[in-house]
């Protein structure tokens, strides 16, 4: 079920009503919320529900077994074995659904190069949307229990934690200890965070349906769909447009998810913090998909050793973590290059910082320094986006080559409106923060009838300005 649809709106109204009516009765409320979440997930294909429930059951059982193998609260060899088993099982499930085609095709090609042409099984496996995200949640839970950081929770809580529909298909990636306690609280039904929730949903819809869709259909897709016939200027503009598009798409989704959860009395963690105002790539990762960054830090980077074993190993750990972050998006060279590029950026910054601390550098006025750092950072990030968006790594190199060598040329795709949208979106990130606070305050002071009128007007505006149809969120595929 897609967020920007009437079907979801009706579904959410039913969920909202049931949520607040049943909240005083925890077990009934939890069962109902699970039922709503599974219905939401099974909307596309009911088989997805079995994958999700099976994953929840497996992780609940293994976490419980690991906890029982820790009588003193400290990890034991047995508990570690069980946690590793759970992590491996999660990765196998993820691999089967997400990467099997790549593995089988690669094996077939490899055998083909040896003159062997086996009849490889052809599996039409439907990729359950959001499988990466509920796998992240599952691993987070099992590892936290195995580390002794949290106590195991009941199956119902695990299932609701993994399936909670606002964050089910594309995050934000919540931790057990920041979400499950909220399930057990009883928020005051007289104090629903309506203004904040509705504003977030409206803003998210506008970002997704209007901004992201406009840039995609008018500039990014035509340019990246046929880069050979486009000038370097067009491809450069399309790359900047894609930077805005993917932000508007993913942050738009996140806003809707957080807004829906807020209306249900649950506060999800933030995922974005004006990423394009970053003045270093490290800062970019503080601001972009923050819950994934946090997950990677806790469950990949720190287990690799973090920065506690010297400079070389720190750099290695950064590279490995970000390369894996790239590969998570798909088994493709372009995603690996995307991750390695970011790893290289971060390692480069760390090296430069260490050098700058020792060297005597000429004083540069702070505003100039900040502007230069922002400019370099934004363009480095955009170079990586080229690999993320292009059909293949080869196409990405071709696009970068054309940008570098044929910057001039016709630019029929680049309109004044497209440039204004790109510039406006970036200016909003660079400008004063929380510009919506005044709007929210004004909205909350309106009569209910006027609030309904404003909301209906907003929905109509989005429908008028948006394309004919709802494209899927980019991150659904991951």
């Amino acid at each position, binding site marked *: 079920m897609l967020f920007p649809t009437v079907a979801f709106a009706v579904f959410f109204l039913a969920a909202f009503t049931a949520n607040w009516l049943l909240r005083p009765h925890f077990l009934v409320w939890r069962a109902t919320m699970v039922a709503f979440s599974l219905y939401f997930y099974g909307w596309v294909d009911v088989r997805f529900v079995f994958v999700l429930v099976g994953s929840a059951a497996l992780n609940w059982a293994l976490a419980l077994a690991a906890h029982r193998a820790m009588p003193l609260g400290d990890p034991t060899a047995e508990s570690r074995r069980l946690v590793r088993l759970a992590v491996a099982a999660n990765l196998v499930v993820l691999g089967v659904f997400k990467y099997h085609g790549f593995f089988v095709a690669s094996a077939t090609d490899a055998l083909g190069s040896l003159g062997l042409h086996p009849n490889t099984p052809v599996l*039409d496996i439907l990729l359950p949307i959001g499988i990466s995200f509920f796998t992240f949640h599952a691993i987070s839970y099992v590892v936290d229990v195995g580390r002794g950081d949290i106590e195991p929770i009941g199956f119902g809580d695990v299932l609701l934690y993994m399936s909670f529909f606002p964050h089910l298909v594309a995050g934000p990636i919540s931790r057990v200890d920041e979400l499950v306690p909220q399930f057990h609280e009883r928020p005051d039904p007289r104090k629903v965070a309506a203004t904040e929730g509705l504003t977030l949903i409206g803003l998210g819809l506008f970002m997704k349906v209007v901004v992201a869709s406009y840039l995609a259909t008018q500039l990014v897709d035509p340019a990246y769909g046929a880069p050979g*016939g486009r000038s370097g200027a067009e491809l450069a503009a399309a790359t900047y447009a894609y930077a805005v598009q993917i932000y508007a798409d993913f942050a738009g989704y996140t806003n809707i998810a957080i807004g829906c959860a807020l209306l249900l009395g649950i506060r999800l963690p933030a995922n974005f913090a004006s990423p394009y105002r970053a003045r270093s790539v490290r800062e970019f*990762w503080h601001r972009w998909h923050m819950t994934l*960054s*946090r997950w990677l*830090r806790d469950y990949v980077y720190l287990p690799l050793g973090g920065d506690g074993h010297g400079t070389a190993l720190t750099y290695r750990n950064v590279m490995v973590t970000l390369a894996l972050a790239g590969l998570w998006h798909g088994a493709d060279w372009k995603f690996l290059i995307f991750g390695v590029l970011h790893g290289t950026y971060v390692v480069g910054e*760390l090296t430069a910082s260490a050098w700058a601390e020792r060297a005597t550098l000429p004083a540069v006025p702070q505003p100039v320094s900040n502007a230069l750092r922002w400019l370099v950072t934004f363009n480095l990030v955009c170079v990586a986006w080229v690999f993320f968006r292009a059909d293949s790594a080869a196409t990405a190199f071709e696009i970068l080559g054309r940008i570098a060598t044929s910057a001039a040329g016709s630019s029929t795709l680049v309109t004044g409106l497209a440039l204004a949208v790109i510039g406006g979106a970036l200016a909003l990130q660079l400008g004063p923060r929380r510009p919506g606070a005044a709007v929210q305050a004004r909205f909350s002071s309106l009569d209910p009838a006027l609030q309904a009128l404003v909301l*209906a007007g907003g929905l109509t505006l989005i429908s008028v300005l948006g394309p004919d149809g709802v494209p899927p969120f980019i991150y659904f595929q991951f």
Partner: protein
Amino acid sequence: MSTPTGTGPHSRTPPGWPGDDPTVPDQLGDLGRTRPGRSRPAGRHPRVREERPQPKPVGPEATQEPSPRPARAPDPDTAEGTAPAGRVLVVMVAALVLAMLVNADALVARTERRDPGPARDRELAVWHPIQDVSHALQLHRVRQFADWVAGNDDDDRPPVPEPAPETASLPGRRELPRPGGDLPDTPPTTEGPAALRTPTTARPLRLWVGGDSMSEAFGRELATQAKATGVIDPTVHTEMASGLTRPDYFDWPAALAADLESADPEVVVAVFGVNDAQGIVLPDGTPVPEVSDPRWTVEYQRRVGAVMDQLRADDRLVLWVTQPPMRDPEFNARIAVVNQAIAAEAATRPWIVLVDPTPVVGATTPDVRRSDGIHLTEDGGALLATDVLGRLGERVNLTGGAVN
């Protein structure tokens, strides 16, 4: 938000890893003032923790003590923005009903463009009464006015391409069913295609290749290979997302008229159809949303035939490349209707040579087709270009200026 990692003496987090940058203010949620989740202290990792804290209960007992989460702390901004659940529900329901009434025409139109089936019928059964109420209350005029202000003439916005199904099916070398079945490369005719002169380096053959996005990689490769003969002067004209069903988006007959006038090609290689399996508007203004509707086929064939007639000239060879199989079965079925219509029109026009690309780029494998299972890769385009150039070489002596 605390910034516990990366700054302590025992930290394993490098400076700059998420969660430890002092430049990121406490209130991270610039878009919605949503606070981030509490960062995990570096010490929570067993290997860096000197003293183990007690595991945190996260179940019911966790609520027995005050929650430390900053996300639940009172926020002066949001405190004013709260409302009783019942009032919120009424506001949301009223807004949704009003929005549906105002946008009923658009909702009906969008639903009618979907493929026939029970789901579409169910949705229309809901939307039509709402549309009736909307018209009775004249609320549809609000949307009409908004469309007029926004410059949307009826609904002339290009539709968002339907997403390919998110299947992770094996990109194996399966042969998909041909859309339209086995199309004849050359239709049975009493007359043959135009006979062409033998080109030379001094007087190269003028070739035009173009059409929708399927002509992008193919057209580029064909131009490259044609130039290499030394006796062909190619012109490429690709328009992404274009076709013959939506002249409001791109008017190919008008563009072809200009191209034929300026380039006066002796060989035309036309590629149309990949974007054409969508709703069409009849000359009297009647929209026909479904490709399966017989009226759709009649109108589409009329347009294809008109373009074929437009391309006709005594000394011109016209090669019309049909569409290869598509990975998505549903899309493939609709493309089959497009191919059948093209074949039917070509069958009555002897100056048209149909080229079925299936034997060359029929498999939707990564070597010849892009990840969308539709478009050609550079290699796929090159293979098809070689095939088409070979067909041309069977009809024209291309050795006059061949580069050896």
